């Protein structure tokens, strides 16, 4: 509600039809206001809470047994070598305390191994030089469908979560046992054959040092209750702004290629296409088609120049050698080792953790190109100290979403085309225009090069035509290329099933293949259909959803193992015995003619290895993974670790503090509060407001929005405010080791102190939309919350921990520059290169012992 007011229309409609809304969030927001229950857990205690739910569901035998036994890996037997935090005082087997990483081999299923046809996949301890093998395994595994074998995953989970009792939840999360039990009973009562529960989160949930494991813990709850692959169920990732889903499908991320194909690594396996395919594909399940997708992608990129003889150009793809995500890149810039940067629609000077460091990093580069709707802080930062900053800044005005055409891909994987409403003003242009003309100029520059390294530029397939006085490229041609062609006939392919590995097809992103089927821009469709008909709410002719216009993934799970709907009420996709095929309201996410009683033989490969009652076809065993034997770097099961900066010890694993595999970049300019420190006793969390958007360029420059929330503020409970002499509406200062910022105090009982055992803990919550500059005379400015936050990383995806950090507060304004306490740190070398982030080793946590 607070951050997604338009999407909240549907939540409110559901509430009016009797749905219960439970809001779990440290911060009482407008979402809490319209919810049936607000559960204010302490920031960063999510896995303790969810682990408590898992334990309660198991202990009370409230799980959906038939679903769990047949559709998840609950029955699968794990290696005898596996040990968990129960046995090892807070870590999983394979932990190397020196490097802070795991050797994951003991986590595997008995009889299984992490898939790699070439058999060379070592169980890596280096996250970024190796692919993680998510969903991949091979070999024939053993299972116990009675769920009683002590080494089956169900029993492992039962032991793992045994200590996550309601009393423990109360002690760690700061909510009452009774409230916790009310949540548990509500979820259980609303799940099963007749009912389903949806879990929705916004990206803030990922911003923890165990962010990925938090989402996984939510998935486990949903799987135990049978809420995945069924209507009204699922896990909905509410994205941070339009087309964020699209920006990971066709990624702006460094470690994946379009369609979630892994980026090749700089190692011997990935030197050739064959090596890459054997390491990245899977012998079993849908990923056995991996080669079709990478070859079709290379054909889209290099056209006729991509031939079987040259590996379709694969050898010329860049290879990654370390962590090249946003934070290490900016740290490298901070150390003066980056010449320049192209920043498009991003405002790291406000929106990234340790924003003060980000601004100084921008000032250490030679050049910077910023494309945005307005002059943002990232283009304006140099005015802080013009005489000291040598960065040459180019500000390129960008067209807004109504000033260009194209499609958005949002939360539900739905591609929706939008037309251009008006021309952009002045020199503002679309991203596509900018990229297209840069590409043309770069290609012209290298046209005659014979240097082998320039092969991709010389041979880049760039066929887009242009229209209008501004030579705007034709956007639908790009979408057609993404859909893909049959190169022999020149026709658009109808879908990814037609993609081939022999070079006769192309597709810019296999999962989007079919979005231009039949020569029709399927994403432009706007027919909701008959909403009152059975299954009418699926509206298959509204836009187009990847993959193959499926609205619910893994929807085979909406039918029981025999292929019959779990209930009439939750009927969705089922087996039609008469016609011998899967049918239903949605496109079945299953081979359409595969009988429910098909049993895969032990030696089967590819999709033949998926039995008729294995709905999770992207996983090599066709099962949803409650326990993840490969793919994650910090444990096969979520375990509660404290945030990096937590004032309280880890009550579940007293010898541990934070996630031992989480990563950090130790640097004088990025200090982290050590455990046991008393200087920063308050837990802080950040949030978004309805009135503003991300780092502010689209809202702080607009008078109509600025007047609605004019100043940076911090929400603080009346008790803490009284103790520190802070008054509502007056100035207060928030201090962390990174910076100090000033803000207006919003003293409100919506923020509550928490009882943590025999002590009370105060929390403060603050929005992060403000920055130092506005391009409008009626716009608003303010200090940036991200100045306070350290750069850190979840081990799997390098997301920073910005939803739980330590600070202190005092009354009054700050009396120096926000980041003055970092003066002089630029000349200090860090003790490790940014691309090889340091793991938080156990010795760092000695104070918790």
């Amino acid at each position, binding site marked *: 509600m607070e951050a997604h007011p338009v999407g*909240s229309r549907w939540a409110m409609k559901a509430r009016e039809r009797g749905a219960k809304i439970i809001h779990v969030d440290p911060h009482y927001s*407008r979402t809490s206001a319209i919810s049936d229950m607000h559960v204010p857990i302490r920031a960063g205690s999510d896995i303790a809470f969810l682990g408590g739910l898992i334990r309660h569901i198991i202990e009370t035998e409230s799980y959906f047994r038939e679903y769990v036994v047949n559709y998840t890996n609950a029955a699968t037997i794990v290696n005898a070598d596996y040990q968990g935090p129960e046995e090892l005082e807070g870590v999983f087997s394979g932990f190397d305390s020196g490097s802070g990483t795991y050797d994951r081999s003991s986590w595997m299923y008995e009889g299984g191994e992490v898939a790699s046809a070439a058999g060379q996949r070592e169980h890596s301890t280096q996250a970024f030089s190796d692919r993680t093998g998510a969903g991949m395994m091979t070999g024939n595994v053993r299972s116990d469908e009675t769920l009683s074998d002590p080494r089956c995953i169900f029993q492992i989970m039962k032991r793992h979560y045994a200590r996550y009792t309601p009393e423990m939840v109360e002690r760690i999360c700061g909510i009452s046992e009774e409230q916790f039990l009310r949540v548990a009973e509500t979820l259980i009562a609303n799940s099963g054959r007749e009912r389903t529960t949806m879990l929705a989160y916004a990206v803030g949930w990922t911003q923890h040092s165990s962010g990925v494991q938090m989402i996984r813990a939510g998935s486990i709850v949903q799987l135990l209750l049978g809420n995945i692959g069924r209507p009204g169920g699922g896990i909905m990732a509410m994205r941070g702004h339009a087309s964020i889903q699209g920006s990971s499908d066709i990624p702006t991320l460094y470690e994946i290629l379009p369609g979630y194909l892994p980026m090749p690594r700089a190692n011997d396996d990935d030197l050739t296409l064959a090596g890459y395919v054997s390491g990245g594909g899977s012998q079993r399940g849908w990923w056995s088609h991996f080669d079709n997708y990478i070859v079709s992608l290379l054909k889209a990129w290099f056209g006729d120049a991509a031939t079987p003889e040259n590996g379709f150009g694969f050898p010329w793809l860049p290879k990654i050698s370390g962590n090249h995500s946003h934070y290490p890149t900016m740290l490298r810039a901070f150390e003066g080792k980056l010449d320049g940067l192209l920043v498009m629609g991003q405002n790291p000077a406000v929106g990234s953790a340790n924003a003060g460091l980000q601004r100084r990093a921008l000032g250490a580069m030679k050049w910077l190109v910023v494309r945005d709707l307005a002059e943002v802080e990232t283009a304006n930062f140099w005015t802080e100290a013009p005489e000291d900053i040598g960065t040459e800044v180019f500000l390129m005005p960008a067209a807004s979403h109504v000033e260009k055409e194209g499609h958005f891909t949002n939360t539900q994987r739905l591609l929706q085309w939008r037309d251009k409403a008006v021309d952009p003003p002045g020199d503002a242009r679309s991203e596509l225009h900018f990229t297209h003309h840069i590409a043309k100029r770069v290609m012209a520059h290298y046209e005659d090069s014979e240097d082998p390294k320039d092969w991709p530029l010389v041979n880049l397939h760039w066929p887009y035509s242009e229209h209008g006085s501004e030579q705007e490229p034709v956007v639908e041609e790009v979408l057609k290329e993404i859909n893909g062609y049959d190169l022999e006939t020149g026709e658009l392919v109808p879908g990814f099933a037609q993609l081939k590995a022999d070079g006769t097809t192309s597709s810019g992103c296999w999962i989007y293949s079919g979005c231009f089927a039949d020569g029709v821009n399927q994403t432009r469709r706007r027919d909701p259909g008959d909403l009152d008909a059975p299954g009418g709410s699926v509206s298959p002719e509204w836009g187009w959803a990847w993959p193959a216009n499926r609205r619910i993934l893994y929807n085979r799970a909406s039918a029981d193992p025999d292929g019959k709907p779990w209930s009439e009420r939750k009927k969705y996709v089922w087996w039609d015995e008469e016609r011998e095929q899967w049918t239903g309201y949605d496109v079945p996410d299953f081979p359409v003619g595969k009988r429910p009683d098909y049993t895969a033989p032990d030696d089967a490969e590819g999709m033949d290895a998926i039995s008729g009652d294995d709905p999770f076809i992207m996983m090599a065993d066709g099962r949803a993974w409650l326990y993840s034997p490969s793919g994650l770097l910090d444990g096969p099961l979520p375990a509660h670790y404290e945030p990096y900066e937590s004032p309280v010890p880890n009550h579940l694993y007293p010898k541990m503090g934070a996630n031992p595999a989480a990563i950090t970049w130790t640097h004088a300019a990025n200090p982290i509060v050590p455990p046991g420190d008393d200087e920063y*006793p308050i837990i802080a969390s950040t949030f978004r407001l309805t009135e503003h958007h991300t780092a502010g360029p689209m809202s702080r420059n607009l008078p109509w929005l600025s*007047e*609605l929330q004019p100043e940076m503020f911090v929400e603080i409970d009346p008790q803490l405010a009284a103790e520190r002499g802070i008054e509502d*509406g007056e100035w207060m200062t928030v201090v962390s080791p990174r910076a100090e910022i000033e803000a207006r105090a919003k003293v409100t009982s*919506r923020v509550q102190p928490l*009882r943590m055992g025999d002590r009370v803990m*105060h929390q403060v919550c603050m929005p992060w939309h403000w920055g130092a500059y506005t391009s409008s005379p009626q716009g608003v400015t303010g200090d940036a919350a991200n100045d306070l936050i350290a750069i850190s990383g979840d081990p799997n995806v390098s997301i920073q921990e910005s939803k739980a950090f330590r600070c202190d507060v005092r009354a009054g304004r700050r009396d120096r520059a926000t980041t003055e306490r970092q003066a002089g740190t630029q000349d200090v070398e860090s003790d490790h290169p940014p691309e090889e982030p340091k793991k938080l080793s156990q010795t760092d946590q000695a104070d918790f012992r």
Partner: protein
Amino acid sequence: MTEIAIDRPESRRMGFFTDTTVCIGCKACEVACKQWNDLPADGAVFRKTSSYDHTGSLSASTWRHVRFVEQTEPVPLPDLPAYGGGNGGHGEVDLVAAAEAHGVPQMDRWLFMSDVCKHCTNAGCLDACPTGALIRTEFETVIVQPDVCNGCGYCVPSCPFGVINRDPYDGRAAKCTLCYDRLEDGLEPACAKSCPTDSILFGPYDELVETAKGRVLALHERGVTDAYLYGAGDEPGEQLAGELGAFFLLTAPPERFGLPAQAESPAQENGPVATAAGLAAAALGLAAAVGAFARAHRR
């Protein structure tokens, strides 16, 4: 009700039903109103003790305004030391004991309410307007004709809801028109159009009242027994300004939202006096008009 100034066959009374129980406080109505009606921002002022409301009230340049009512109480905590010093508790109450005794302690409510001109049946502003700038349209809404308004401001104290105000720059009165220009083209008002949760419903007045009554009953059945209509469905004699063209569903006393419990057009309340004064004014006006006509005619 005053006479309808514009003749349009088949036009009906149109209105707003604002249901606060589905409002999410997003303020889309405020922004959509300002955008469609080309109203300026009032300036960025951080208001103390106003929750998330920083525009304060309806004004000549804010025709929709969302109120935020925080009805929250601190959770009782025992007397325990707090991280960072001080005492974190509020007294003797033990959280667990309190939970056992009274159920789970939780904050009560944070209410949102999108306020707007009520388009009263007995419109004080219209009754007070000496120039005829304020008129009742064919949709039985009340609008200001800016080209007729002379800025006298008589309407301002005559509105029992404090809705209408003078523009500080040109002095003329301004308020919600129920998007008269959109209604003429068969479009719904901008605020209702933009409301993501249908908290603001627009439609023929009679139908809206029926919808609203049904909504109150449904909420009562669901246990929301404090739901009631403000400005519609009252017995004669208890009506607010003779019923409101824009009425509300509330779950707290009207004063919580800055609304009066009783409201009537001053001209109606002071009927005989006002009538006499009105007749006198009319007579004077008539005399002046006749004189002016005679003068013009002689030229």
